């Protein structure tokens, strides 16, 4: 289905973690040390250290002692906040380097002030006026309205590759009113605008970037300047990136003096380092929870906009009839997915709109129940018959198809296997197809698949999933015109054009009901983000790590 903001980065991250892959690199300092490493003896007395550990009375359990937050990223991160060259790694780094106009509230995830201390939306929903607070970039130049205009123009420029341009919807122009006031003008009302603006849209210093090609700003990425709570210190290719507290940050100097992003591709190694007291954070799959728990680790489960689904190629004649998809949804043992695979850290969903979209999520809408006999009845209504032991479509095509899963991730493998067993109950003959990640991605992108285990991390607005299900959608996802339902298209179009949650909610209630009915994909569950922090970290809050990192400067480390 639709490719999404942020979906690949996380997937790539997890995937690299799960399979053996990745990187890290030595610092230049290493070269000079080579000479010194001939036939060296152990510099530590292991017996002494063992005794010390034993007298402490703990077989395991110590938090890091260095006065810096030690945070893992899966790959080297190039700090280009517009093109995001390294996906999730870049995103996690950028949170501390760059301030934004608005950012997610640390508790509710809804748009909250950052560099914009306040804003107004015009009655017609076409003009957003932001009032900037007094703030400075890391080189002490003040943040002005023209920096905002510069950044937005940069993001919207057609020559800029990728980035989050399409999230800005019908943004037409950014105008400087005065030094501290900036106005954004839409060509049509666009309800999700503020939520999209808080989703990885930084404010960049015009003076540091003007004249550079944003697709390859080689000078800027060597010494990036933002207005975030931490400023650039150093990057050791493939080993770590250090950012250090910016005392003149508008919301006060950070409590933790440094954040060191350690590049560790393998999640098992990240876990080992967390348990050994060499790391402060790790994000894991449910199957890894047991191995992560320990005396110096605190588990945390956060709500992050995200959902798992069985992607269906609606162009395949086998799946054209919505009753078939509904039957596949009913026969899918989602309860087992939630309980046995996700260990109940999440909830089942009826549509792609998940509980983090608080105002839009329809709590009363129940997912299809697990009911194989009703599913079989539906298939019969749709004209399917069983021939030679295989379910066959009205046109005589047997339900032999593939379930595409990217290789290496334990959760998605389990989901795929459960789907296979579930659908076999209907007489279908699905086969597992495990593919290397890039191949998996390409097959879905080119619609060369039948069904696939997929997920989608999006901004916290129901319109964010529009690209996957609205065939008339404004050109954001032209590669995926696979599901075509006029009613769905119409509801998406209505919902996005309203500018307040109050007027949008009833529209999205209808949309959720419609998507549940049509099952363009078989919607499965909303997973929580599972993470372990070292016991010394405090103040990270209940939101997903991408959003929580906007507030790293408020976190503290206990001794």
């Amino acid at each position, binding site marked *: 289905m639709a490719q999404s903001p942020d979906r690949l980065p996380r997937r790539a991250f997890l995937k690299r973690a799960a399979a053996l892959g990745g*990187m890290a690199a030595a610092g230049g300092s290493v070269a000079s040390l080579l000479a010194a490493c001939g036939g060296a003896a152990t510099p*530590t007395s292991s017996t002494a250290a063992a005794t010390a550990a034993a007298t402490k009375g703990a077989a395991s359990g110590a938090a890091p002692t260095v006065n810096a937050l030690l945070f893992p990223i899966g790959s080297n991160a190039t700090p280009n906040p517009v093109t995001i060259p390294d996906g999730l790694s870049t995103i996690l780094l950028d949170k501390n380097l760059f301030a934004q106009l608005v950012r997610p509230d640390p508790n509710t995830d809804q748009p909250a002030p950052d560099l914009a201390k306040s804003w107004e939306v015009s009655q017609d929903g076409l003009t957003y006026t932001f009032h900037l607070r007094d703030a400075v970039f890391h080189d002490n130049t003040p943040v002005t309205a023209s920096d905002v205009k510069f950044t937005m123009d940069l993001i919207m420029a057609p020559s800029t590759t990728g*980035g989050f341009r399409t999230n800005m919807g019908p943004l037409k122009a950014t105008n400087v009113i005065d030094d501290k006031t900036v106005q954004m003008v839409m060509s049509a009302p666009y309800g999700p605008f503020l939520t999209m603006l808080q989703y990885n849209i930084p404010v960049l210093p015009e003076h540091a970037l003007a004249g550079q090609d944003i697709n390859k700003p080689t000078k800027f990425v060597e010494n990036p300047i933002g207005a975030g709570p931490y400023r650039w210190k150093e990057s050791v290719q493939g080993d770590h990136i250090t950012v250090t507290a910016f005392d003149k940050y508008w919301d006060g100097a950070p409590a933790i003096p440094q954040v060191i992003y350690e590049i560790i591709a393998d999640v098992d*190694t990240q876990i080992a*380092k967390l348990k050994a007291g*060499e790391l402060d954070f790790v994000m894991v799959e449910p199957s890894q929870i047991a191995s992560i728990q320990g005396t110096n680790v605190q588990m945390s489960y956060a709500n992050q906009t995200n959902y798992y689904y069985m992607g269906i190629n609606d162009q395949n004649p086998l799946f054209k009839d919505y009753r078939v998809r509904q039957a596949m949804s009913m026969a899918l043992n989602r309860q087992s997915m939630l309980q046995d695979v996700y260990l109940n850290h999440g909830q089942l969903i009826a549509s792609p709109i998940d509980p983090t979209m608080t105002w839009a999520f329809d709590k009363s809408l129940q997912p299809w129940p697990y009911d194989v006999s009703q599913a079989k009845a539906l298939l019969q209504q749709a004209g399917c018959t069983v021939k030679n032991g295989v379910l066959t479509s009205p046109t005589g095509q047997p339900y032999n198809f593939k379930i595409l899963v990217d290789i290496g991730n334990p959760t998605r493998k389990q989901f795929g296997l459960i789907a296979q067993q579930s659908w076999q109950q209907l007489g279908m003959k699905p086969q597992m197809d495990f593919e290397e990640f890039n191949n998996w991605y390409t097959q879905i992108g080119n619609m060369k698949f039948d069904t696939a285990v997929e997920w989608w991390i999006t901004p916290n607005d129901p319109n964010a999933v529009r690209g996957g299900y609205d065939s008339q959608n404004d050109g*954001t996802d032209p*590669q995926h015109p696979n599901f075509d339902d006029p009613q769905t298209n119409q509801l998406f179009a209505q919902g996005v054009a309203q500018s307040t949650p109050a007027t949008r909610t009833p529209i999205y209630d209808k949309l959720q009901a419609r998507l549940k009915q049509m099952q363009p994909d078989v919607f499965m569950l909303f997973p929580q983000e599972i993470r372990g922090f070292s016991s010394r970290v405090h103040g990270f809050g209940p939101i997903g790590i991408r959003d929580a990192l906007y507030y790293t400067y408020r976190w503290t480390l206990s001794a």
Partner: protein
Amino acid sequence: MSRYILSRLVQSVILLFIVALITFALIHAAPGGPGILMSDQKLTAQQMHQIEVALGLTRPLYIQFWDWLVQLAHGNLGIAYTSDLPVTQMIAVRLPATLLLGASALALSLVVAIPVGVITAIKPRSVVDNITSALSFIGVSVPVFWLGLMLIIVFGIQWKVLPAAGMYTEGASVVSTGDILRHLIMPAFVLATAFMAGFSRYVRTSMIDVLSQPYIRTARSKGLSARVVLYRHALRNSMIPLVTMVGLALPLLIGGAAITEQVFAWPGMGQLAVQAAYAHDYPLIMGITIVVAAAVILINLVTDLSYVLIDPRIDLK
């Protein structure tokens, strides 16, 4: 001799060309495009095409390959897609870590394997021989990632006598040699384990063979001490198979040990190679392949030349 070296060097260039050609063909035959095309959000087909044009991927393959060769002749391996950095620089930054790990592991394995091989060869099928044989088989067959994780759990997490992973303590104000050595112990041991086991078997076999040769009997009957016979006559002659084995193992010094580096978050070439493969970073894959291939060819040449020094009977023409 110089003629021999010259002809080998000419062969090497041809060989490198073939390696490059095959690698190029393989990465372009692999399904899925470069990761850079997927790391951007919601790219439209048109934007994808723009990037492909910018990267030169829309040109015919033979032109792309020719271009790469021309750049190579200028000592330029291109710019990696994933980092916007020159490939040569990325390799140069990681090479020291890999050399440190590989050299330590190799040194450790030889220091253990040669004495063990000699001792077990002197008294074959003795208790010592049987025990070391069993250990060797375990050493060869234990999976590297498992051994690595077990060591991390025991020494890094349970006993806390060694750092769990990484190359040095992050956040320390000064990077000390001692700190790096502490981080080096476990990965070097893991990497050395398999070498150690294999090498000691080769030394043992070759030593048993040499000890049964007539010239050893002659040396003994001349009244030379057992020690002199063993070290002066037997050991040197039994080294040739070991030199071959070490020569074959040496490319790891440059190419990196992907799994060991992975498990211990060791910032070396092996990790870089895996990263490049996952991201389908064509220039990086080509760069690493050609550098490692050149190293392998060169090391093999040096290995062949070293036979002459060890065994005067060998004459390279």
